[in-house]
């Protein structure tokens, strides 16, 4: 049913449609509306689940770990400092190959304290072994969440669905919430093979010595690559069931023959799409939304960049002392390509700074005059800084 809904409420409804056995979460801005809405659904009897209101994000992640290991579908959500506090458990969940879904309402990581959006939090746990899907809009946040359970339960890899805090979580959009019957048809009941069961006892989480550790890690690494076709298939089957999709691994928009491409993750993609209409570029430009960041979709990206001469990677995160995270990874991936595009990398919108529509002409201008060649925080106003810090 199409409704005008706040992103967080839409996500909460999507969670309910997936029939989780256990939900555990700890409040943190901007994820709060998700847990509040889930709590309300439980209170109103619209969602039957064991809702565990824990004392920290660390325990939230640990509770869903235990719940999924005991055979229940589990859900949690967090942001920023919460993701940081969970970090140890996130690695553990992925290493134990326990399926579950987490919504990350992306927010900057302090200090300085900042509750607004950027993607430093999910980027900081990119090596945890979780699949990471980024959402361009709230419809994708809903659809990706439902797909995420299917992907996770088939691959036994946990999935993090990343949606920009406030920009998506607190924004009203017209969203189509699927009906329960359709979701049930798409998402089979959770049957975890390695679940804890007294009638067939197993030990999970044993000590692994150097003799076997590398092999365990190899299989985890390979499993991530094997998840790529599962992610594509989950989206295709979703389209067959619901009549819309999230673009599989990545989405392209604009001129197919374009020599300039702008790649981004999350809601900036929506901004850039609107900007393409508002500020029609004179050059042929295409946009790429990198939906799947882990596992890294190398082949799909290379195909999308075929014929592209200049690629601008626009990201909402920063690795101090290096530059862009996504940009750096893309440069590494392209280093083996036959005719790689020139990669330009900027960070924008850190800590919730507004990314207006004129970002598009400004980026193209910077490309023309060469100022985009070196990494920069593109929208930083250096005049606010003392001379020695510029």
């Amino acid at each position, binding site marked *: 049913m199409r409704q005008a809904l706040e992103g967080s409420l839409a996500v909460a409804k999507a969670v309910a449609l997936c029939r989780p056995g256990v939900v555990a979460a700890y409040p943190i801005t901007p994820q709060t509306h998700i847990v509040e809405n889930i709590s309300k659904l439980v209170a109103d009897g619209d969602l039957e689940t064991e809702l565990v209101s824990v004392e920290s994000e660390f325990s939230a992640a640990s509770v869903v770990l235990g719940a999924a290991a005991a055979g229940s579908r589990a859900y949690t959500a967090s942001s920023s400092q919460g993701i940081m506090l969970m970090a140890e458990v996130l690695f553990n969940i992925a290493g134990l190959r326990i399926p579950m879904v987490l919504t990350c309402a992306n927010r900057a990581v302090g200090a300085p304290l900042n509750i607004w959006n950027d993607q430093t939090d999910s980027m900081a746990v990119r090596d945890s072994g979780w699949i990471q899907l980024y959402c361009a809009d709230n419809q994708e946040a809903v659809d990706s969440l439902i797909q995420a359970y299917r992907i996770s339960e088939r691959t036994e890899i946990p999935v993090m669905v990343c949606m920009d805090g406030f920009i998506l979580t607190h924004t009203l959009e017209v969203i189509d919430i699927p009906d329960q019957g359709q979701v049930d048809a798409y998402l089979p009941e959770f049957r975890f093979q390695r679940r804890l069961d007294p009638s067939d006892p197993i030990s999970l989480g044993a000590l692994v*010595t150097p003799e076997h550790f590398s092999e365990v890690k190899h299989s985890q690494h390979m499993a991530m690559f094997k998840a790529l076709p599962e992610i594509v298939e989950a989206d295709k089957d979703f389209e067959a069931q619901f009549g819309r999709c999230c673009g599989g691994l990545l989405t392209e928009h604009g001129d197919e023959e374009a020599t300039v491409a702008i790649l981004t993750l999350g809601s900036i993609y929506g901004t850039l799409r609107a900007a393409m209409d508002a500020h029609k570029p004179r050059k042929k430009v295409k946009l790429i939304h990198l939906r799947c960041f882990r596992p890294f979709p190398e082949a799909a990206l290379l195909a999308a960049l075929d014929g592209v001469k200049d690629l601008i990677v626009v990201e909402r995160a920063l690795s101090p002392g290096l530059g862009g995270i996504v940009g750096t990874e893309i440069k590494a991936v392209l280093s083996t390509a036959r005719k790689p595009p020139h990669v330009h990398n900027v960070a924008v919108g850190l800590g919730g700074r507004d990314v207006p529509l004129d970002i598009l002409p400004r980026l193209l201008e910077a490309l023309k005059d060469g100022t985009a060649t070196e990494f920069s925080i593109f929208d930083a106003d250096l005049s606010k800084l003392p001379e020695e810090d510029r």
Partner: protein
Amino acid sequence: MASTDRNAERLKELRTKHGRSDASLPERPAEPAKDLRQAQPRFRGLEAGHRACQGCGEALAARLVTEAAGPDVMISNATGCLEVFTTPWPQSAWRVPWIHSLFENAAAVASGMEAALKAQGKSTKVLAFGGDGGTFDIGFQALSGMLEREHNVLYVCFDNEAYMNTGIQRSGSTPHAARTTTSPPGKARMGKRHLKKDLLSIISAHHIPYGASTSVAYPADIRRKVRRAMEIQGPTFLLVHSPCPLGWGHDGARTIEIARLAVQSGLFPLVEMERGEVTDVMPIRKPVPVAEYLKVQQRFRHLFAPDDPRALQEREHLQALADYNIEIYGLYAEEADPLDTEGADTVRRGGLAN
């Protein structure tokens, strides 16, 4: 159907599944058993063949706890010796479903397991195991949360009074003046400067239905307390004093003797608490001087250095702590406790009269 009938049926089902048929499991005799051995439970949650040190108090305590808890359980185990010596991949000494996640989240993982079982409508009991480091210190927040949310979990802390798995570093549970690798005695220090954290009182302040301390020196006491906790729907807690020959510096053959001295001296009181109140204690008939307990352990050797006035001072300090325990818990008693199994004269043959 009463829940005990259901449990009995489930037990039967599990025994059959694991080839432990009822045929090899004699029904509890109506008349008293002939000897103590026959009164032992036959189910072993923790099998032999694991890699604990000789004389490991924790290994014995974990075996006793899982035996008494039975097969219809699942365990969340914190990182530590118990986890390491029982599950060197690809081997495992556990006969019950068991998961190890991290050092500080055993209680939270157990909370999740319990929530899942609740969602699935199952009655399997969740146990959480941790050492004193994972319970008194790093895992305390998760434990407090689990108790406050009233998860139906029995949390068992195997207390060997230091971080033994990482090489004997001080924990919040290390007794005052004990030597560890991070509280070494020297010219300026006499071992650990601070007191052992009174964890049981803190746990009890959560007003949980049942919390108790017990000791590996008193197997019958462990069994009774585990069974008691298993019957309660709600959060329960057991603190099991478990000597570590390596960390305490004593011969592995003396584990039980030393654990018993800790109780008899009053340094480790065995008490039961319900909803925040002390309800029972194991009485001490003849309190043993604390020095008897200290002198058999290398970790207190510096307290017996001749010509060091600090040594006597610290011994007196520890004696005062034991006297304080005896007084506030009212440990001194004339009569024998039925669960005090020291010596043949106090053993009640044929099971426990409760």
